[in-house]
């Protein structure tokens, strides 16, 4: 109950900032739309099928990508690094008898819910007007497991981004590091294209790394291309990565807080 109340109190901020949240959503909409147009052209010149991907599967993929990048993918790293660590805002969290990780989770989740809501609205409009271009799993079991995968994807991406944010304990300028992380995510999470279309070696590496489990696998799960066994395997790998990330977070947090000086005071 206590956690729920704290969550709801945090939710109010997003309600107030719904306009800026919508702007961020629109920004996230543009890259997948451009990529969709590119693939539409590519498919047309290749007889409508590239390595098993058709116009309907690729359009569903990119429209789901809009939801995935705005809903499952956390964007807390800037807030942690710049406002809390570099400008000293962490001070107010450190003196509170409550977990910093959970407070930040409660701060981030409402943003993802609202952006996800915008995404679902766009997706429904898309599905309504272009029924033949939209492919989603119809099996209830697959859908239920996909929802579990989405929730785990958010927890994984959130914990990973918290770790990225903690880098500010050691790095004076986090901008370059953030750009590098974004570039890796862009390639290995399937934000540029479905991972199965990448060169074999890069695809194999991507399947091992955690990023695919934040975006790519949740999307193809929802598309219904995976069977129950494969979905269970995705969940297992996600849990392993969450455990690794949680351990790393806790380690870096303990070390980082010792370095924290509360600059700006």
């Amino acid at each position, binding site marked *: 109950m*206590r956690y729920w*109340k*704290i969550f709801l*109190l*945090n939710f*109010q*901020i997003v309600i*107030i*900032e719904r306009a800026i949240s919508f702007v961020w959503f629109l920004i996230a909409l543009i890259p997948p739309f451009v990529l969709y147009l590119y693939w539409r052209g590519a498919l047309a010149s290749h007889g409508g099928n590239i390595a098993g991907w058709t116009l309907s599967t690729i359009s569903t993929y990119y429209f789901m990508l809009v939801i995935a990048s705005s809903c499952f993918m956390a964007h807390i790293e800037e807030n942690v690094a710049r406002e809390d660590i570099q400008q*000293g*805002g962490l*001070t*107010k969290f*450190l*003196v*509170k*008898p*409550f977990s910093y990780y959970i407070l930040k989770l409660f701060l981030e989740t409402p943003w993802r819910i609202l952006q996800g809501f915008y995404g679902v609205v766009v997706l429904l409009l898309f599905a309504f007007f272009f029924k033949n271009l939209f492919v989603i799993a119809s099996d209830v079991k697959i859908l239920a497991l996909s929802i579990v995968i989405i929730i785990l994807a958010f927890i994984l991406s959130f914990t990973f981004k918290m770790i990225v944010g903690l880098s500010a304990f050691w790095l004076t300028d986090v901008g370059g590091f953030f750009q590098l992380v974004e570039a890796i995510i862009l390639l290995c999470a399937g934000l540029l294209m479905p991972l199965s279309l990448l060169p074999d070696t890069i695809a194999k590496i991507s399947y091992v790394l955690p990023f695919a489990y934040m975006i790519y696998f949740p999307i193809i799960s929802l598309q219904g291309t995976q069977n129950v066994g494969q979905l269970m395997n995705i969940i297992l790998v996600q849990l392993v990565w969450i455990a690794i990330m949680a351990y790393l977070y806790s380690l870096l947090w303990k070390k980082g*807080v*010792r370095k*924290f*000086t*509360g600059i*700006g*005071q």
Partner: protein
Amino acid sequence: MSSIIQVNNLFKTYKIYKKDPGFMGSLKALVKRRYEELHAVKDISFSIDPGELVGFIGPNGAGKTTTLKCLSGLLYPSSGKVSVLGFTPFERKSAFLKQISLVMGQKNQLWWDLPAIDTFLLNKEIYEIPPMQYKKTLDDLVNLLDVEEVINNQVRKLSLGQRMKCELIAALLHSPKILFLDEPTIGLDVVMQKKLRDFIKEYNYKYGSTIILTSHYMEDVRQLCRRVLVIDHGTLLFDGKLQDLIKEYTQYKLITVVFEKDIERKDISKFGEIKEFELPRAVLSVKREESNAITSRLLADFPIADLNIEEIGIEDIVRDIFIKKRR
């Protein structure tokens, strides 16, 4: 009475990067980075009893805030022992954090886009304050600080003074046993400074909380703190009553005289150092122990309209302490 805060041989050292000036300096730093140790706090020891209201005095970079941060668990000491309420602050155990509060004049915990009442509700949940206690404490604090009208207004629309009052409420809802105040009156106008000082004084009296205060405004310290800790360059220079600080560091008093007739400067120079001489007014600095005798002689030897004996201002004393120590 057993101490609520015990600090023994506290050290806090930072490693800071040093670069030679200019382009060559940058190239050199690429090959080998040079670090130096900055001793923010050096071998400080003191203890504080429950209910005390203690002021930390010192110039910028003296180590006041660093000490305060070590006490509140924000900073990990390089060495030494710190015990607050029987806890090691840096471990930041929940039971410890529920008994302290930290208010920083330059940082806020209130949600900017929501009314202050929402931050109060958040703190109610975070500190697990029972509903009845929350209501009573909130009502008390709102009345004491006279902010009933504004707690439902968006924080960004509040004046700096109103915001600081709401910050104090947010920090005090869980009735902390120890309150750390770091520059609480910074940026406020004199009227609001006085209101906050009155509140802090009353809160300390009414609730018996231990309050540790740092401030650049000597008036804060003078009005609130019987005991002061003077820190400079990370070293504790003085720990005791404010009156003792004045006695220890001032061997002089100031005598201000308004003469009825003009006199020569040399006529009074034998009594002490002339600080000001603008007839009919003159200010003399005289030895403390001679001040009574000199006053009598002045009254006997000169036609005097008014005479006033006063201690040297606390600002001047503290400034003198820091200047002398730096020499």
